[in-house]
């Protein structure tokens, strides 16, 4: 029976073959559920690690590699939604299956929006567990295969977007870039996404004055060593600040003036063209 005090290994078996096997982290504050799932998954040859709560699971997840996470939705302290967000911040690609009570469809929807791959409704049948776990592990295997392929074969990539001054188009670019960030194995994906969102918003709203006839050009250059993104608007430009001396407004409650500061904090290098209509941001691997 799993301990209430810490996350621990329930079974170390790992086989090979067409049936996908993996290292699975299972989180539930109900020890009986934890025991049933771990016993069943172990019998199928998976390596199962059990955690009685979100805090223990996050600690374990930070220092170990897993192929799949199965988590209860309702737990004291950190609930399933909080846990998904924390795990996805650490590894955006980890497949997560959510366990939830019947009738909790709004939480299921929210968990899927946060990146959970699938869900199971309690009470569940072990055959269903096997099927859902197989699907998740095979998807993860395919992802890892692709990632290994890109790591070995893809040297660099250059994408150029020419957008109308419209924030909805900007979101599509940040989503696209986010996927490439994963392909190239960069960490801190949310920092890159936030910096890009800030830069495009500046270009659309301040550079082009939200004039949809004016374009924003976004160039995204990925290589194995670094990511370079430039965002250029068609406005008159601004007096550009020196990134080394960027400061926050003296009024801590000011409603604006933090965008460039955040970009500078989250990217490794930042520079502008002379006219002040183009920002270039670099993140090193």
């Amino acid at each position, binding site marked *: 029976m799993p301990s209430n005090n810490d996350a621990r290994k329930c079974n170390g078996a790992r086989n090979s073959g067409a049936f996908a096997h993996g290292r699975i982290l299972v989180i539930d504050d109900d020890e009986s559920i934890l025991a049933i799932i771990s016993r069943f998954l172990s019998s199928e040859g998976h390596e199962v690690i059990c955690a009685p709560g979100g805090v223990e699971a996050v600690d374990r997840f930070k220092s170990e590699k897993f192929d799949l996470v199965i988590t209860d939705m309702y737990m004291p302290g950190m609930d399933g939604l909080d846990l998904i967000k924390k795990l996805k*911040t650490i590894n955006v690609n980890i497949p997560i299956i959510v366990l939830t009570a019947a009738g909790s469809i709004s939480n299921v929807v*929210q968990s899927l929006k946060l990146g959970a791959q699938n869900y199971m409704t309690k009470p569940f049948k072990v055959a269903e567990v096997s099927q859902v776990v197989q699907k998740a592990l095979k998807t993860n295997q395919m992802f890892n295969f692709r990632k290994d392929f890109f790591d070995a074969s893809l040297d660099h990539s250059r994408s150029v977007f020419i957008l109308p001054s419209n924030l909805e188009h900007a979101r599509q670019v940040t989503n696209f870039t986010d996927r490439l960030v994963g392909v190239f194995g960069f960490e801190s994906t949310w920092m890159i996404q936030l910096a890009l969102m800030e830069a495009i918003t500046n270009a659309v709203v301040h550079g082009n004055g939200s004039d949809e006839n004016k374009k924003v050009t976004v160039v995204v250059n990925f290589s194995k060593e670094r990511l370079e993104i430039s965002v250029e608007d068609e406005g008159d430009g601004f007096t550009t600040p020196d990134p080394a001396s960027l400061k926050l407004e003296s009024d*801590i409650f*000011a*409603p604006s*003036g933090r*965008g460039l500061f*955040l970009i500078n904090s989250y990217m490794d290098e930042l520079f502008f063209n002379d006219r002040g209509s183009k920002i270039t941001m670099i993140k090193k691997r």
Partner: protein
Amino acid sequence: MNNLNIGIIRKSEYVLISVEGDLDLEGAAELKALLKRDFSIEDSVPQDFSHLVIDFSGAGAVSSSGIGLLASLQRSFNNSKKKMTLVKIPDPLRQSLIVTRLIGVFRICDDLAEAIR
């Protein structure tokens, strides 16, 4: 079209605003407009308003515009001697509040029960 959904629960002791989706430029403008329209919260907070609780458990990215809105709201609540609490803020927002030196300005709780106490 932004992806923000805003839920509102009104209780006598507090108003709970649930933010689901990105609090970016458009999302922040939408939330600001809602607070003004439904609760007359702007530069000041009405005397009969008790406590604003903003639940971020469904929130996605929070940009500088979202942070700016939170900062200016906190100023309004401070000026009116009213209480505002942020609940379940995502780790990226927590980091941005640290970077922008705003982390100590807000009352931040990890669960709703604690927030509404």
